[in-house]
């Protein structure tokens, strides 16, 4: 015989089991709904690619020791530093091509980073300009050592490479007035034994007067 107390306990346990089953079922439904909601917010489209823009490259020619302006259409990021790296990458891709008149192996991967900093004001000595948003800028171009190691040695070819980088930066980022070079993050005396990489280059010296932005 089952006592009355045991009967009540059995009924309570059965009710508790039903309630717990209901709660678990409800939690499962909610988890399923959350999962479905998470799938809806997942990216279902490819990242938007920047619209192609026109970029002006100052392309060197070893035959007549000149820089020529060429316009290319390529996607350019909005960030100025990434933009500078993109145009320099395209410039070095042109030099790495087979039919280049200024052949240098390496291509776009030869530019590690390009940093844009406010240019120092002569009136303030070495202090950076306070007009960081509108004043002239210094571009610090960090090249990879593999590029420097494979660069042909020669006064003309090294000078043209340096000037074409300076001119290309100025043509696409007119606020860049000075350019400094690093190789793997460190200063280096020369590019391949000739062109001085320790000095600060003025972009105005690299761009022919008729091509300089007014």
């Amino acid at each position, binding site marked *: 015989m089952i006592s009355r107390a045991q009967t009540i306990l059995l009924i309570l346990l059965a009710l508790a089991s039903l309630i717990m089953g209901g709660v678990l079922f409800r939690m499962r439904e909610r988890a399923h709904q959350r999962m479905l909601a998470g799938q809806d917010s997942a990216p279902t489209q490819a990242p938007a690619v920047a619209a192609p823009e026109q970029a002006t490259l100052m392309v060197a020619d070893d035959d007549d020791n000149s820089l020529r302006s060429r316009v290319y259409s390529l996607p350019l990021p909005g960030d100025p530093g990434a933009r500078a790296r993109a145009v320099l990458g395209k410039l070095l891709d042109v030099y790495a091509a087979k039919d280049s008149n200024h052949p240098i192996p390496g291509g776009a991967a030869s530019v590690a980073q390009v940093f844009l900093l406010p240019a120092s004001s002569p009136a303030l000595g070495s202090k950076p300009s306070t007009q960081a948003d509108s004043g002239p800028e210094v571009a610090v171009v960090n090249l990879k050592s593999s590029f420097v190691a494979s660069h*042909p040695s020669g006064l*003309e070819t090294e000078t043209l490479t340096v000037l074409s980088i300076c001119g290309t930066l100025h043509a696409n980022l007119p606020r860049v007035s000075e350019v400094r070079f690093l190789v793997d993050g460190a200063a280096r005396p020369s590019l391949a034994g000739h*062109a001085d990489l*320790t*000095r600060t280059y003025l972009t105005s010296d690299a761009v022919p007067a008729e091509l300089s932005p007014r």
Partner: protein
Amino acid sequence: MRWSSGRTRGTIAGAAAVLFAVSVLASQVSIQQAPPAPPAPPPPTPPPRFVVVIDAAHGGDDTGGHLNDGQLEKAATLALSVRLRSLLGARGIQVVTTREADQSLDPDRRAEIANRARAQACISLHAAETGSGVHLFASSLTPVIPARFTPWKTAQAGWVTRSLGLAGVVNSALTHAGTTVTLGRTALPGIDSMSCPAVAVELAPERNADKKTTAEPDDANYQARVAAALAAAIVEWHTEARQP
């Protein structure tokens, strides 16, 4: 005693007056007799010293570029330096070379040699495999008025105008000799520290109209032609320097 001393004083005073009169007369006579002496001619000034510094780039551990025929730039520049030194020496021009053998020299040492020589022309010789003909460079520093004390790294700034003049003379001589010349400005550490008219001459392969190489930078005949043109340019520069 008092009388005798007064008489003596009178005698001495009279003798002094006579001597003074005689000396004045004698001086007037001598002035009238001697014609006015012409001003002494200035001592002959020696002609200004004309020194040329020839800098054969690279050397020692610094081999420079590699030429297509397997030669090194340091050897080609030294050979051209020796040729040019001989040609200038034969014309009576004093030459100072930065190196006569395969030895290492940093750019500062080269500039020191040139600046100590107080040269009227400094020629830095290079060789390369890219381009064609002769590449002629002057410093890309902005010209300034020469000062007594100048920063070491930009000492050439006070001489850039004259360096461009020297580059023009060298360009004319090389073009006259039938060599293709390209002109440019560059930042070269050795040149930028020199306080003299300075140009960098880079010898590239000689190519024909089809861009085929007809002579490498270390070709003896090619070097001899370029050296002769450079020597002619230096002589011309010397002649211009002597003209008032």
